[in-house]
């Protein structure tokens, strides 16, 4: 009697297990999907090359800069300017101020997000302090540069792009070997 039901029961249990796996497969699938579509406003985590085709002076795009330390992050973290008007294709440098007002050494990691999400695909960073972890000794400060350009292929419905950084305290997971030192401060 029970044997009669075994094949179907096993098949259904396999479906259930496969769906459990599918739940986890959604994680990489989501990342790939977002990379392709820019859905979640994540920018590329590696440097873009500066081969900007040509500068489109007929068009202006407003870039707004937002910087915010995460709740647990004690650093002061601010953009040098709040907004900037650029022509697509033009390369710009923008500095962010970081200061560690505490009495201890802290490592930070900035995570960028672009809004509206799809514009993320057209916002290219040649150099960014967010590519690596940043270190500040007690009481020190530094300027962290960002070098970027807006792709001339940016669809015309976008006239303003907001770039927002959240800075996290990652001192806990940090060891000298994992973080390559970067030459950023001035």
């Amino acid at each position, binding site marked *: 009697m029970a044997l009669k039901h075994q094949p179907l029961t096993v098949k259904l249990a396999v*479906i259930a297990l496969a769906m459990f796996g*599918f739940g986890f497969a*959604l994680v990489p699938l*989501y990342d790939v999907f*977002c990379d392709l579509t820019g859905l979640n406003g994540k920018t590329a985590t590696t440097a873009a090359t500066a081969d900007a085709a040509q500068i489109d002076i007929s068009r202006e795009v407003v870039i707004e800069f937002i910087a915010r330390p995460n709740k647990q992050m004690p650093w002061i973290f601010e953009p040098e300017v709040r907004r900037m008007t650029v022509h697509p294709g033009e390369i710009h440098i923008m500095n962010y101020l970081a200061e560690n007002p505490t009495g201890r050494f802290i490592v930070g990691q900035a*995570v960028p997000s672009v809004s509206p*999400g799809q514009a993320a695909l057209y916002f290219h960073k040649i150099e960014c302090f967010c590519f690596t972890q940043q270190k500040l000794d007690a009481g020190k400060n530094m300027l962290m540069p960002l070098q970027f350009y807006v792709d001339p292929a940016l669809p015309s419905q976008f006239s303003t792009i907001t770039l927002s950084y959240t800075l996290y305290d990652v001192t806990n997971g940090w060891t000298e070997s994992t973080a390559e030192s970067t030459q950023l401060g001035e």
Partner: protein
Amino acid sequence: MSAAVTDHEHDHEHHDHKPSGIKRWLYTTNHKDIGTMYLVFALIMFFIGGAMAMVIRAELFQPGMQFVEPNFFNQMTTVHGLIMVFGAVMPAFTGLANWMIPMMIGAPDMALPRMNNWSFWILPFAFLILLISLFMPGGGPAFGWTFYAPLSTTYSGDSTALFVFSVHIMGISSIMGAINVIVTIFNLRAPGMTWMKMPLFVWTWLITAFLLIMVMPVLAGAVTMVLTDKYFGTSFFDAAGGGDPVLFQHIFWFFGHPEVYIMILPAFGIVSSIVPTFARKPLFGYASMVYATSSIAILSFLVWAHHMFTTGMPVAGALFFMYCTMLIAVPTGVKVFNWVATMWRGAMTFEVPMMFALAFIVLFTIGGFSGLMLAITPADFQYHDTYFVVAHFHYVLVTGAVFSIIAAAYYWLPKWTGFMYDEKLGQWHFWCSLISVNLLFFPMHFVGLAGMPRRIPDYALQFADFNAFISIGGFLFGASQLLFVWLVVKCARGGEKATAQVWEGAEGLEWEVPSPAPYHTFETPPHVK
């Protein structure tokens, strides 16, 4: 010759013999016993979850903070939601499936009776764990039944591990129950019970069971990720580590939307059984009902992001999810049309099951309409996370799913107990419930449209009158359900003897066995013509 007959009779008596006391219930593999346990469990959970709703409505009776701390209020909304969804509605449907599916398809029992016993008995533990977590220092889960990250990861209390554990057990129980239903329906149909002769309750449950094994594991995955994010340093949903909190919502609603159909498809099956009986006409458009149910189930996988319009998405995405959501209204409309057409020129009578089924048709449709309003992306930006959403899902879940379960209980009680329930008391229960449920949920549409946010223990003064009104409706609705308990107890104890057919217009195998249904039915399969 005569010896053979008595032997047979003796055999039968022997079969009906069951261990007495607690052991009967602990070890039982009988689908009727297990069905009863599921139903009683669901009823208890309905009252526990209901008590929490009373706390919520007491606090919201007046603006300002009166009775509870905000953190406790949040625990009440969270655990109320979890208990009603996973503890009341889903187990009640599983209980009905256990009782009725074998009898409806002419099977002697469920296909996997031992697993059946397990899938029930782990449930009380799941809810015990969840309820105990409320008494932990820092309190129980307070992040909403949807447990969005980072509320459930970064900002949640120590009880989160218990929450995760209890959801895992609930999930395992539902998956086992679903596998059992599918195997029973595939393998144990009586000869002649072809697919397109199966009662609609069986059909809708079959499709529900497939939804369950497709999405409950995804929920298990989601809670597992929350667990590892919180306790083991992963960053599925943590932007600092490269994750994304919006991903949580995608995974959750990939489960969540099919889940809401898990809670309504069996209700469609129940209403499709009751309406023909009391209209004394066969169901109009049987085949289209089957196809409509299947298409709703398939579409339910393509609409999840309608819960997430405000997270920001490309116009193309918003349009896709908006149109797919609206498309679901088409098969749903087919169903409503078929129920109305079944009643058209029928010789109708209005016993309690029919009253609840009729209320279901009207009020569920109202819930469907508010759903359509929410599906309009730009409008949802206004409605999202307000009491309008609360009104919507209570119309589909309380006057939808819960009313259908109550209707089913009235419809089959005489078959279960062998006695007719008290019709007069039942009518009282119906009218009290009908009026109070609308006092309770209808004004929520208005406060929602006016901007009152959900899951907030206090509110702006201009909502005071409506909220007092809503709370009174809530208390009345809660009190009305006590009538139901009284009625069920009374009916189990005795009353007018029920015939095998019970209802004049009832058709189907379950009405061919005597009332109360013997402990074992259809040990030799009937022949279905």
